């Protein structure tokens, strides 16, 4: 017979008392572990929710960016590079530049590794009188887009006009009753009509496009161009200063003009949407932080109350147990069992109920927190995501519960250990 045997048999005999004490410890440690786990779950949900919203925002922004890019493509080239000495008043009035720059500039630009613009199209434009038909037209000499060697190849926005051919705006080919394949004379040179464009409602309707080299010959501007058209890539509202800065570094004696206000408006709208979405995410973050603070405050009030109530209950059950075992303690002390052994027996009982209650409380707390913490949340959560030290938490639960049980049961234990056997035996006889 050992103290341990006696302890186990006593627990089995007074099951209800022991079970009630274990339940009490379960409630105490469960509420503590539950609070910790619940707050952790809240943090994870917040993280996931914000992550999800951020991903949604980024997806939406990417979509808007793509929309803007496509819109810009539809609107055509929106960057015009002109010679530096070009008077802009004249350019706006005449719609073409009166100053010229070397055609080689376009190659210099395309080979430079510039990132803010792409789709480089050199052109030579001039308003002339078509001598054969006695009417004013805009003659545009163009060639294919010069590829940017530092970027992935992209599909050209315009198809080049082959040498010896001419493309006509709608007003021209309608009034002159021309169609593709016809032959037409321009400034004494024969051209085959390559394409007849649909009505565009702008100056393109009175424009004739021929191959750049041929235009340079007809206009006596060999190796010269008066504009490079390009498309900006940044698709943001404040891109122009960057573009100007970058182009100035490559082609010092040029100036940059931006066209296409619709695209800019769209980019601005996109920026606004992005800003609003960011504000919404920030508000969500603040709301979640507020909710966490409320839960934390509630836990910091409730948990000590629950733990204290449980400790009192354990103490009451301890007193009840000592009272019920008064005679037993008396006879054990009479037959020579030391008060220290009686104390060990009672402390062991409390350690045992603390360990058992702490382990079960840990389990109950975690399960309850997972259940209640995920009941009203949209995101799913896995135990492994919680990056909590489960072993440490279990150890803390078991150790803390054992300490709580021993402390709560300390006074009853001392009463049992100090019980005078003579008192018991004298009164019972």
């Amino acid at each position, binding site marked *: *017979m050992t103290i341990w045997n006696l302890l186990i048999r006593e627990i089995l005999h007074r099951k209800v008392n022991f079970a009630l004490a274990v339940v009490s410890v379960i409630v105490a440690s469960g509420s503590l572990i539950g609070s910790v786990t619940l707050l952790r779950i809240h943090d994870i949900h917040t993280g996931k929710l914000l992550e999800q919203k951020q991903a949604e925002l980024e997806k939406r922004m990417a979509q808007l960016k793509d929309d803007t890019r496509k819109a810009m493509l539809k609107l055509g080239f929106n960057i015009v590079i002109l010679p530096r000495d070009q008077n802009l008043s004249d350019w706006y009035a005449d719609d073409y530049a009166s100053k010229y720059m070397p055609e080689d500039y376009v190659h210099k630009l395309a080979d430079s590794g510039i990132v803010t613009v792409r789709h480089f199209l050199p052109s030579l434009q001039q308003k002339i009188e078509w001598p054969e038909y006695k009417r004013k037209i805009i003659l545009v000499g163009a060639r294919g887009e010069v590829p940017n060697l530092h970027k992935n190849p992209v599909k050209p926005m315009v198809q080049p006009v082959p040498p010896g051919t001419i493309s006509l705006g709608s007003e021209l080919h309608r009034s002159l009753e021309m169609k593709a394949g016809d032959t037409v004379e321009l400034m004494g040179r024969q051209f085959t009509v390559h394409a007849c464009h649909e009505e565009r409602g702008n100056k393109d309707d009175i424009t004739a496009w021929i191959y750049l080299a041929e235009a340079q010959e007809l206009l006596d501007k060999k190796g010269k161009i008066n504009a490079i058209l390009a498309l900006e890539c940044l698709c943001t509202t404040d891109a122009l200063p960057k573009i100007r800065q970058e182009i100035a570094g490559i082609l010092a004696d040029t100036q940059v003009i931006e066209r296409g206000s619709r695209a800019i408006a769209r980019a601005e709208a996109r920026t606004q949407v992005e800003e609003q979405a960011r504000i919404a995410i920030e508000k969500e973050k603040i709301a979640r932080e507020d909710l966490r603070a409320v839960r934390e405050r509630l836990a910091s009030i409730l948990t000590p109350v629950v733990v204290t109530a449980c400790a009192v209950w354990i103490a009451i059950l301890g007193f009840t147990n000592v009272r019920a075992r008064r*005679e037993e303690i008396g*006879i054990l002390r*009479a*037959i*020579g069992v030391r008060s220290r052994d009686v104390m060990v027996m009672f402390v062991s009982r409390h350690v045992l109920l603390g360990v058992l209650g702490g382990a079960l409380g840990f389990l109950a707390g975690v399960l309850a927190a997972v259940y209640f913490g995920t009941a009203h949340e949209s995101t799913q959560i896995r135990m492994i995501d919680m990056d909590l030290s489960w072993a440490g938490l279990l150890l803390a639960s078991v150790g803390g519960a054992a300490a709580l049980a021993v402390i709560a049961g300390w006074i009853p234990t001392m009463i049992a250990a100090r019980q005078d056997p*003579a008192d018991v035996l*004298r009164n*019972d006889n």
Partner: protein
Amino acid sequence: MLEFKNVSKWFNGAQGKVTALKGISFSVRPGELLAVRGPSGCGKTTLLLTAGGLLRPSDGHMSIDGQDPYALSPEMRSRLRARTIGFVFQQFHLIPYLTVRQNILTASLAVPLKEASERTQKLISHFGLDDRADHVPARLSTGERQRTALARALLNQPKVIMADEPTGNLDEDNAQTVFGYLSQYVSDGGCVLLVTHDARAAAHATRSLQMSLGQLVE
């Protein structure tokens, strides 16, 4: 073995000083069964608890096996009790959730014995409790309970048994059985201090003392 020299014991209660023992002197030697008889409330139990090292006398001197238990530390006094004294009470004081065998073995909690199990089995057989060995006290008759208590008192082979009204709850047959076991223990060299109001005890005692109002009366 057991010696009392002018031992007195009084209690200070709400109604003043109450004297339970007054100038008690006697001795019990091995092979002797001393019966101290007297009416209820005369101080018999106080005498037995004082003799058992459980109640410090207010005055006088006593010794067990040549040692004054009250001069020892509580630890040593417990050890002395465990090795030297066996207690038997009127209320048996068996532990309710332990079987007969386990109740007898509780005596080994204080003095671990290698042969505790064997000795327990021998005592179970000696006291005719073989078929009750695995029963809890609630399922035993009063006679069986007292025999279990007696077996527990004998497990550590004590030099003296202190019995407080051991037959108080027993019928004639069971009382005779208990007296028979005590007589046998004495004849084997042990000594017994028996406090009782049972007149039959005198027939089994080697010496008998009368007690009245805390004093011994020859």
